[in-house]
């Protein structure tokens, strides 16, 4: 099994079509990345207007998903791609679904941020949420880099990051419960913060899914529901054989 060379193709027009779709996916990714960053800024700075603006921009992400989806269907129907190209189209269709969900989670964080802007901010200014947010942002960024470079090593490393996100999510959850028990007045805020970290954790999961699609696209190997250690070993042995 060899890494597929997805950069060359016999039919130039076909190649251009595929490249255009990929560029659109990455543009969508870039926009989602910005949405995530603005949603977190809105929460941490208590900027209600920014939070609302993030929530109201989500329709753009949905529009991009629909447009890319249509283009993929068109490629499937008219070009009947095979092997690596087929994998790319299939992976793209899955990728945009996850990207769109990331967009939805950003919308939710934006909405919560604009609600929380009116509530007093905690003394630690959402330090934990900020840290988790940065980890997730980095994950999304690296995931998109891996997608642009078709870099399965980076994709695998990024997918592994999801475990830390999950751990941190649980620790923030416990912290929130402690806060609520100590001071019932913080319950409202703590519940909202729980929703935010839940969304961040979900974004991490979606990013991990996309990383798996990238590995599938590059190597033609379905690694969902397989432990990442085994995948790493297999990729390594494959590299040794090549």
């Amino acid at each position, binding site marked *: 099994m060899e890494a597929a060379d997805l950069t060359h193709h016999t039919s130039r027009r076909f190649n251009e079509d595929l490249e255009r779709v990929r560029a659109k996916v990455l543009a969508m990714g870039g926009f989602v990345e910005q949405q995530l960053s603005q949603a977190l800024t809105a929460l941490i700075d208590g900027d209600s207007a920014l939070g609302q603006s993030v929530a109201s921009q989500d329709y753009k992400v949905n529009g991009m998903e629909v447009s890319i989806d249509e283009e993929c269907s068109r490629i499937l129907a008219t070009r009947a791609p095979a092997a690596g190209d087929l994998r790319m189209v299939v992976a793209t269709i899955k990728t945009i679904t996850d990207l769109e969900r990331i967009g939805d989670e950003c919308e939710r964080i934006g909405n919560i941020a604009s609600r929380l802007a009116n509530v007093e901010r905690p003394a630690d200014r959402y330090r934990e949420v900020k840290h988790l947010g940065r980890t997730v942002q980095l994950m999304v960024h690296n995931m998109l880099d891996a997608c642009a*470079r078709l870099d399965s090593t980076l994709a695998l490393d990024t997918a592994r990051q999801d475990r830390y996100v999950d751990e941190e999510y649980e620790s923030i959850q416990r912290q929130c419960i402690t806060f609520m028990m100590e001071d019932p007045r913080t319950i409202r805020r703590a519940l909202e913060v729980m929703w935010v970290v839940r969304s961040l954790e979900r974004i991490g999961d979606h990013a991990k899914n996309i990383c798996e699609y990238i590995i599938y696209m590059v190597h033609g190997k379905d690694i969902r529901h397989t432990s990442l250690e085994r995948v790493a070993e297999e990729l390594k042995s494959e590299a040794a054989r090549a």
Partner: protein
Amino acid sequence: MKLGSKPGLSASAWRGLLVQAALAVLAALLVGELTGHIGVGLAAVLGALLLRQLYLLQRVLVWLQGDRVDLAPDAGGVWGDVIGLIMRLFRRKQYHKRRMRQLLRELRHSTAAIPDGVVMLNPAAEILWFNRSAGELLHLRNRGDVGLRIDNLVRRPEFVNYLREGDYRSPVVVQASDLSEQYLHFQIVPYGAGQLLLLVRDVTRQAQLEAMRKDFVANASHELRSPLTVIAGYLETLSQDEALEPGLSGPIQEMRRQALRMTAIVQDLLELSRLEAEGAVPRGEPIDIGALLAQLRDDLRSRKTLAVEVRLAAESTDRLVGEEAQIHSACANLLENAAKYTPTGGVITMRWWSDAQGGHLSVADTGIGIAPEHLPRLTERFYRVDAGRSRASGGSGLGLAIVKHVLQRHGGSLQIESEEGRGSTFSCHFPVSRLLPAA
């Protein structure tokens, strides 16, 4: 023999050829004499000559096929000249190649040393080459990233739009990534056959200074507002005080006017900094421009001191989608300007119409007009066409700057036409996407 001179054989070659021919004839005659058959002699000599030529040709061929140019076969006569010529051509080519390589290396070294990032892109926006600074600023990898599309790697939406829209007249400043405070200045320069040169500069410092400036203006205006209110309030009371010495009433009236003017300036500054701080208006609500203009017209007519005619031509019932308070402020500013500079008996015409290009709003007056050299700078803050003119009429000097910002936030543009002595027309153009047919 020099390359490029008239083709022909050198004198020595001619001589060699003649000597060879003479020797051959002599040898042929000698052999003919010995054997008694002149034909056999001729055939033997010609055969020997032919073999020698073929042998030499073969050696030249072997030499040309090999890669050791310095191992040229040793041959005299015409072959020697041919070989010499080939060697000369080859050396010349090598010399040029070396020079080109050297030049290219120097060029690359110098571009690599430029502190600004440089990326060469082909028409499909794929990376052809980039220098070290660009690699560092944009986190490009030396291996593997050549041939990838730049917008796949630099995914900031502002940059992607800039690249795709193809309008490279003005640069764009973009925050490098969500995880850093770095700001990058991108400028694309088209060259050659659709190729693009992307210049990247780190402008974090400038961006910070700009942010500081905006903050300063906003804070300073805010801080000035409270003391001004107090001053204006006391002056108001004083001016109505009957017991005041008559000689002081004039100065106090003047102080009151100036205090009011300062308040107006501070208010405009605050509005301007608010406009600057916010991004584009996302959607807003549909505004009935016709009604808005009609109300402004009535306000103006109700002013007793004004003796100008105000006309309104609302030709379209289309609604403009935007922020009503801002659009109102822009229209009011335009109308205020027109009223200020139109002498008694003049006419102000407001017009609202829409076509395939979008919505258009214009305010035309028959006032004193503006000289063409002032037009480009008119929307700058505190720009005065002449010192006496607007100070007397009490403007803040920020009206048109506010109009420009409001339009920018709504995706529109301001167009100013004016003729000195005849009047001016200020037109606002809004894109089609901002229009909504009346329900």
